């Protein structure tokens, strides 16, 4: 917390139990954080070429879902399922200026 500081033991305990769980974790982080790690990157999918990033290293392996979405959809061969931006949902990412930060703002699209 940035604006409150725990002073006594009860406060420290409250801070501890209300700490937000890690929700999205990049798979190449080592060591992987303990606790709520949810493997959602597509490097879980065994597919030739995905053991290395596009430069042949491992630093740029798939980021979590928000990065996968754009990378797969824009830069990779994998046909990620995204809304039809040309016809049906041209603005579906308009609130998402930076995917790493704003991915929660991407709209759900209903046909």
């Amino acid at each position: 917390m940035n604006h409150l500081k725990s002073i006594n033991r009860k406060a420290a305990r409250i801070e501890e139990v209300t700490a937000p769980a890690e929700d999205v974790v990049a798979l190449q982080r080592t060591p992987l954080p303990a606790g709520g790690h949810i493997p959602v990157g597509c490097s879980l999918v065994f597919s030739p070429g995905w053991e290395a990033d596009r430069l042949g290293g491992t630093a740029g392996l798939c980021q979590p879902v928000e990065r996968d979405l754009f990378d797969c959809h824009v830069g990779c061969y994998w046909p990620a399922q995204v809304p039809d931006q040309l016809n049906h949902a041209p603005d579906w990412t308009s609130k998402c200026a930076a995917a790493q930060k704003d991915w929660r703002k991407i709209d759900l699209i209903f046909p």
Partner: protein
Amino acid sequence: MSVLAVREHHRFEAAGRPFVYLVPSAAIFALDETADDIMRTLGNGARSLAELVAELSARHDAGQLGETVSELARVQAIGELAARPASPKVLPLTPFPLTTMVLNVTNQCNLSCTYCYEYGEDKIVDTENGRKPKFMSEETARESVDFMLKESGTNQVAHLTFFGGETLLNFPVLKKTIAYAKERAAALGKDVDFSLTTNATLLKPDVIEFLVEHQVGVTISIDGPKEMQDKFRVFQNGTGSYDIVAPRIKQLLKQHRRRPVGARVTLTSDTLDITRIFRHLTDEIGFWEVGFAPVTTSPGRAHAISEQGYDRMLDGFRALSYEFLEAAVAGRHHGFSNVKETLQEIHKGMSKAFPCGAGLGLMGVATDGDVALCHRFAGSDAHKLGTVRDGIDRVAQQAFLEKHHLDNKTDCSTCWARPVCSGGCYHEAHTRYGDTAQANLHYCEWIRAWTHLCLEIYGELAERNPAFLAAFDSEPAEPVN
């Protein structure tokens, strides 16, 4: 629409910065300027987030305001106005292990202190003419030890406190009880910690030697310098006890070096010069710690402390607390135990559903083996919770806990100091109002002022010497008085 409001809290300042003490969690947080501004603004009335941001955006960045609001909400310093948090009445799970057994080895006393809760005008049990034996027998004491070890459950250590009357009038049984308890505890792989309270009149050389050898913790009831001690703590013929006890205490303090010896002072309307009492008992007599408690009495008595008397008592406590603070910052010992005990509770963040451990982790045993709420009720049939032979009466205990839970004390429901006070001493309430379940309303203002002072001291220490507070983590103890 979402409307934000402050939750119950008490704001205080220490070392030049604001803090909040949250109720009922008893958590303490230091606030930065933004958090403090939000708390104060919402304290003046509930507002929507948009209104709050609009009001404070001239002084704080909007992003920072949003972040601070979520942090305050996270620790429940603020919340939705409509969603008042429920605080369910939770009773402790029983069987609750017995931590401390107070053994009244006698109800007789060689002093006749006029304010005595056991013999004075407000006594609960007719100790003089009642059917209880005057002295506990060896057999009852042994049964009590077995009871204690059994009821201590999975606890490694059981605390056995000898009490009276004047405890040392039954020194023979005390000695044999310690030997028996050591033997039984060793057989069960447990430890027993021994302590006693005495008026010091019978601290003869052989007694002192025994106490030192067996590392018995000693608390001495003494009211201060001669003129104060002799005002109430007198023999039956009216002679003061100071001249008898002072040299004996000095001898004890000289020999008993392995456990700190504490003084326990009863304050009355006539004896409220707290600093003078403290100086005498520490500097002149040599006590390691001194604790004060106002006399328990019904309001009409001459020795009862008046409202102005409580103010004076607070002034005295305040002066010693500031001394304590400076000593703690400098890493020196200071023997004012009232402030230390309250700081310990604040440090842990204790939020009590019951004012003390009586009837739960602490019980008193009368001379005939009847188990009562605590030593102050030992021998009273109305406050009996079983016997050492038949064990704790779980039905009576459950009924007691149900009836005395803080939730039932509606007077306390809006008081910010309730996590610390929880309505106050059962015995005090019984003497004042004839009802152990009544909140002690006569000292509410005092408790709030005292708790506020201790919070300020705590905040100062948290800023200036946090290591002092961290040392509390390894300390046990709830003294018996």
